[in-house]
């Protein structure tokens, strides 16, 4: 009864908050969830969801993949309720559900899809049903905030011991594929993989986690690395790494922008290998629910600073978020795969949401090619300048600015193609300043 009242109160609150936000041109984020959770910590249990719930978790790629799954479902004519970018902790999920439920707390939709912060998977899905969990990857990420990757994986593994819904796993990440063994009785484990692409390497060229077999601590052997520790691995002792694949993406051609999966040819708009992994997950979900993903992948646009491609006064600019070494490394990988001359802007903040520790920039492989100038900005612009200088890039071609406006003025002095990499709190201010 109390929870019913809380929901009604929250709906009314939401109504007025929306009006206020429209007037102020502000986004109320997950304020609603925060208030509701204070009033009733277990409110999620009182929301009635009858349709399938799909969740995506990962270190990198949650937002893109969740958005692509939502887009795929909508293109198949389904009504979808979903959370918004970044609001992926419990309060963000409460916000999304309250906004979309009836006064009696019912969700009327064909599907619910969420991106969920890695550490919140066990917390949220103790309270609401889950039909399909997609796990993309685990990388080191803001160690001062999140702790070690291993403890995060163990938490999810613990949750999965009693979970028997669909589990969609990246077979090419040894830290993800291991989750398929958490519950021996779960027959609904589906592995996806992407076949070796043109720029895969035999040696690991970027910092990564998957070094030892999670089952017997033997050093894993890799046939090739796609990026970071993602690739074709095998434990020489126990054979871990050879699961039956549900989805196998092949013939990836980033120039022609095509790949194949089970004799279906797909076209796409992305320019990097990690997005292809996200698409492999989307295809897996589509197959599970007997839906079509071909049109989705052909037309799904990356935006909002996820490999976003814009023209500023005729100058091609590619903006990408990078909040951890792998994020930055894959961005620089894309930059290196582009043979044109270009300039780079790297914006590095050390605010609370970014993590105060910026040591991770030393895990970035700064071996950049055809880059004529690098501008750095953000609260740690000088740290970044030191990092890049030490990698061997000519110090005279590095320009650090603490002030973002000055940095952008300096960047657009020339008309050379731009790559922009920004970390979490730096991304939106940088985008706004660029798109002005």
């Amino acid at each position, binding site marked *: 009864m109390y929870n019913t009242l809380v929901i009604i109160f929250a709906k009314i609150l939401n109504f007025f908050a929306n009006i206020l936000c429209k007037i102020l041109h502000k986004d109320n984020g997950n304020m609603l969830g925060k208030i509701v959770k204070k009033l009733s910590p277990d409110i999620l249990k009182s929301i009635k969801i009858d349709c399938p719930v799909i969740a995506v978790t990962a270190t990198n790629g949650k937002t893109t993949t969740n958005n692509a799954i939502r887009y795929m479902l909508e293109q198949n004519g389904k009504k979808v309720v979903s959370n918004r970018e970044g609001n992926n902790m419990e309060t963000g999920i409460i916000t999304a559900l309250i906004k979309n439920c009836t006064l009696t707390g019912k969700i009327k939709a064909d599907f619910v899809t969420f991106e969920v912060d890695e550490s919140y998977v066990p917390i949220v899905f103790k309270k609401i049903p889950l039909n399909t969990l997609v796990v993309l990857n685990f990388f080191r990420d803001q*160690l001062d905030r999140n702790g*070690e990757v291993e403890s995060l994986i163990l938490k999810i593994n613990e949750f999965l011991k009693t979970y028997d819904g669909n589990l969609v796993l990246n077979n090419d990440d040894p830290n993800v594929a291991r989750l398929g063994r958490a519950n021996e009785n779960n027959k609904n484990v589906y592995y996806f993989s992407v076949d070796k692409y043109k720029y895969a390497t035999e040696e690991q060229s970027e910092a990564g986690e998957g*070094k030892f077999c999670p089952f017997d601590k033997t050093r894993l052997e890799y046939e090739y690395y796609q990026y970071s520790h993602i690739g074709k691995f095998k434990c020489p002792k126990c054979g871990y790494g050879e699961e039956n694949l549900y989805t196998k993406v092949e013939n990836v051609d980033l120039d022609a922008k095509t790949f194949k999966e089970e004799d279906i040819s797909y076209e796409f708009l992305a320019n990097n290998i990690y997005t292809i992994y996200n698409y492999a997950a989307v295809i897996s979900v589509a197959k599970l629910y007997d839906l079509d993903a071909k049109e989705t992948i052909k037309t799904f646009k990356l935006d909002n600073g996820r490999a976003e491609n814009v023209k500023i006064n005729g100058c091609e600019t590619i903006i990408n978020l990078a909040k951890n070494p792998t994020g930055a490394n894959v961005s620089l990988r894309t930059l290196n795969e582009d043979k044109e001359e270009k300039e780079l802007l790297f914006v590095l903040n050390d605010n609370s949401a970014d993590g105060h520790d910026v040591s991770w920039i030393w895990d970035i492989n700064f071996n950049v090619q055809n880059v004529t100038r690098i501008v750095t900005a953000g609260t740690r612009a*000088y740290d970044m300048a030191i*990092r890049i200088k030490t990698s061997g890039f000519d110090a005279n071609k590095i320009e650090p600015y603490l002030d973002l406006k000055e940095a952008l003025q300096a960047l657009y002095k020339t008309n050379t193609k731009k790559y922009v990499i920004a970390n979490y709190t730096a991304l939106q201010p940088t985008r706004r300043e660029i798109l002005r």
Partner: protein
Amino acid sequence: MKEIKLLYLYPDMLELYGDYGNIQVLKYRLEKRGFNLIVDKYSIGDEAPDFTSYDIVFAGGGADNEQSILSKDLIKYKDNIKEAVEKGVFILLICGAYQLFGKYYKGVEGNIIPGLEVFNYYTVAEPDRKKRCIGNIVLKVNLNRYEKNNQENLQSDNTEEKNDNLEESKVETEVIGFENHGGQTFDIDSPFGKVLYGNGNKFGDTEEGFFKENVIATYLHGPLLAKNPEVSDYIISYCLERKYNEKIELEKLDDTFEEKCRAQLLEKFLGEKE
């Protein structure tokens, strides 16, 4: 060409916080001056290295799991490592490696992970896993303690010449880094620095790290040497002069970025405190 030989311990296991950056900084600052840095890597399964044949040994911080695996391996080299330290090989240890070189590490469950016992300090894990010393940290260091600690050695030969060198190589500076450790380290007789901002060896400590003329052991990531060129140059001078047994004047490098970075962060952290 003059060169320094560095042994990099467990690069695939102690690599969590960008500590490898320390080697990159040393390499950069050596090469800019026309010296060479040779890096040999050692990890589990590799042929046993002779620690005494190196000018500098480096090890960083890692995840708990990796650290417990490698501590069993490292202990095989205990005597060789002690010998290297006594002979004056420079030892640079960050975070987990700092702990491993002490007497022991006592885990949350009271389990004792034996250390190398090269140094006398020991570390006790904070029982509450959620409580860690995490944050930016600033130290005041004085890297010239030769006179105080090794008076006898100094008297032995060439007293005059060595005294000259000492005056020249005096390093007194602020060191800026980032700490992230649950372990609380006790029984430090000669710390790396005094804490101006942050925690140190323990929660709210006044001292951080462990220092001897040829040893810097510290919790500081960042990496340590990135924003502290004076510490880098202290290590470089020490290694070159020990190896070539002559006074080597280090050419001044363009440290504009480092200087600006230090000014910005010292203002931010020390200003915050007041």
